[in-house]
């Protein structure tokens, strides 16, 4: 579960990125986070992954209180949150299989566990036949699916996708959104940050709109509610 209560985040340069954000995303829920550039979306993601600490207010993510989390606990928080980025962030020198296995190695998984789990997630994202390829040999959509496989492989309770379709054409974007939807159906809490209004409208899910550091609308009314603001 993700829970923000009256969260304020100020940066040392004096800008206030969040001005009192409260929101709650239940376990197994699917939500879109929308808002213009500079509205505070990235700050929310960085707070969830422990990259930043709130200036005031409380942030709870999967049982961790991030306003008082210790540095050495952060890796363990991150193992409960899989993150997918617009620019994929894959390791080009490793194969598709190794990119996914790497995420398991990092948390100390054994060889047998890796041999069982990696093919399963690669199949889940439709890359079961591309294990020996390198990321540079894949299309944009495939690279993003690989990034999703990596985010999923450690079975996190939450997936956060930051503009996952920003670099993809409409057809590939649709595929990725459907894949995230499927992952959510398997029980993973999913938060998708996006600008793509058409996709948000089609999937008809909860939309949290943020503007100028405040939540301006939150509900099933989709992108329109945010635009009316």
């Amino acid at each position, binding site marked *: 579960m993700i829970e923000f209560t009256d969260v304020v985040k100020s940066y040392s340069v004096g800008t206030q990125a969040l001005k009192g954000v409260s929101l709650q995303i239940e376990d197994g829920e699917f939500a879109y986070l929308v808002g213009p550039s500079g509205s505070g979306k990235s700050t929310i993601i960085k707070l969830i992954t422990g990259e930043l600490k709130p200036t005031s207010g409380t942030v709870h993510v999967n049982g961790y209180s991030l306003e008082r989390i210790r540095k*050495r606990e952060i*890796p363990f928080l*991150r193992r409960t949150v899989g993150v997918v980025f617009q620019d994929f962030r894959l*390791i080009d*020198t490793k194969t598709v299989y190794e990119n996914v296995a790497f995420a398991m*190695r*990092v948390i100390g998984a054994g*060889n047998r566990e890796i041999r069982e789990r990696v093919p399963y997630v690669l199949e889940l994202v439709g890359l079961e036949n591309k294990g020996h390829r390198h990321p540079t040999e894949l299309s944009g959509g495939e690279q993003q699916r690989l990034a999703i496989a*990596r985010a999923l492989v*450690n079975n996190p309770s939450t997936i956060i996708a930051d503009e996952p379709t920003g670099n993809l054409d409409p057809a590939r974007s649709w595929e990725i959104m459907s894949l995230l939807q499927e992952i959510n159906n398997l029980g993973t809490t999913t938060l998708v940050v996006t600008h793509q209004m058409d996709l948000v409208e089609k999937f008809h899910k909860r939309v949290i709109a943020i503007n100028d550091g405040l939540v301006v609308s939150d509900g099933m009314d989709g992108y329109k509610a945010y635009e009316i603001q």
Partner: protein
Amino acid sequence: MKFNKFSYLMKEGIRGIFLHGFMSFAAVCVTVACLLIVGLFSSLVYNLNIMVDDLNKTNEVIAYVDENLDDAEAKSIGSNINHIENVQESTFIHRKEALEQFVATYDNPEYFSGLSPDTLEHRYSIILMDNRKLTETVDALRAIPGISDVEAANELAEGFTTVQDVLEIVSVLVIAILLVVSLLIISNTVKLAMYDRRDEIAIMKMVGATNGFIRLPFIVEGFTLGMLGAGIAFGIEWALYDGLVGRIEQMEMAKNFLKFVPFTELLGPMVATFVGAGLFVGVVGSWTSIRKFLNV
């Protein structure tokens, strides 16, 4: 730590060397160049010091024995002389022997045929460990009962002392500067190698790697590169040293006064310095460079 995790981290460290071949090559080359300069300069200084020391030892102190003492008494003073801390060795010279030596220095020994050895005193020829302590040692010799006088070449000793002092200060300074410069250059190279990998480190952080897990392969890599650099530098240093010394010793002009110790005599301190510097640079270099990339 589980064995398969440990062996994975080791393998990753070694793999990193080949994966980032150019940076590894650069780091090893810089380490070799820096260690080679430091190594050659220190072995040169070591040899110069020994040469000055040897010259120094030709400067002997003569202690004359009271003429009233008989042979046995004169010889017994030797143990008192050897007890003085700065005395490296003392040789008893009987007055007869002293006369022979004296006569031998002249072209016409027959002029001295009527001279009795009794006109001379028994004496000790003394070589000091450190000529910088000449005055104190001469005083200590004078204080020994049965020693009537002591003769020492003060000016010569002072000359050697000055040369040795200057050599010591200059060499310590130059080696220190060379070491600091080498460390800076090498740690910068390691930092560049690390910068090359910042994305990989960021991904590891993102998927929940602990700092220790991220650090270990880099430390293994730094250690291996440092040791490799040290090993290569050591080999080149050995070959260069032997080659140069061989050449110099063949030169007519140089062979009488330039004497070099064999490289095997330098082996211990050289291995210690090279391994120490290689380790320090590799491990400390990667440890400190990676720190800033871990703060994500």
